[in-house]
């Protein structure tokens, strides 16, 4: 799994998440998010176009992140989910609690 920062505007950060988000790698996302929050960031838009795989460990990390930023009055948005990742989100009902956009432009508007 790889997390790449794309840009920062005020307290909003845009990043890409790629590879596999599984029981071994998901913790990296959690600690990266904590790190960002200490830098006064509180809203996050994540491009998942290159995210090939997510398991419940990944969903857990996403849900923890979404709750955390909501409690800071920020938000967590995802964009460009691959079909298989989208399916996992839908089965879990995560598409109803996490805003998902077709691409980064849609997420920004």
């Amino acid at each position: 799994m790889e997390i790449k920062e794309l840009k920062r505007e005020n307290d909003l950060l845009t990043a890409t998440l790629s590879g596999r988000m599984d029981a071994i790698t998901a913790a990296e996302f959690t600690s990266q998010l904590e790190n960002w929050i200490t830098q006064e960031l509180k809203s996050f838009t994540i491009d998942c176009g290159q995210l090939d795989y997510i398991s419940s460990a990944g969903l857990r990390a996403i849900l923890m992140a979404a709750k955390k930023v909501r409690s800071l009055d920020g938000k967590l948005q995802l964009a460009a989910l691959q079909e298989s990742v989208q399916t996992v989100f839908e089965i879990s009902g995560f598409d109803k609690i996490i805003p998902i956009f077709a691409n980064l432009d849609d997420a920004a508007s």
Partner: protein
Amino acid sequence: MPPPNNSRKAIAPNLIELPAKLENLPLFMTFVCDQARQFDFTDKRTLEIELVLEEALVNVIEYAYPTERPGRLILHLEGKADGKLHLEIRDKGVLFNPLERAAPDLEAELMERPIGGLGIFLMKELTDGISWHRKDDENCLSIIFEPRHVK
């Protein structure tokens, strides 16, 4: 017309047994995915098999052996002539029937959704057959995958 002969695709029961630790997760995963690919499952279905497998294995790794050093985890895989893949996951850990867990509330608001509890639910949703029994002090979780998942 004779029935299509798929028997050349059948694969005999294959077995891997290793300590139940997270370090060994990739090896278990490769074992199953390699065989699934030889068995002509689509990439999409192989990803779903991978997901179910990860959920099942991680639960054994995290919960089955709470006190001891890592216990054993045994995985059987059998490809049937009818194109179905049978998986059996066995451990000698604490008695636990995952199929008795209640499903999560998918309608809850973000702040009301509990952390966790999705692994077993995903397993049930993505398999074409799942059963559990306890035998000789072992939890046996049997899973069936069809080449294409019908919901």
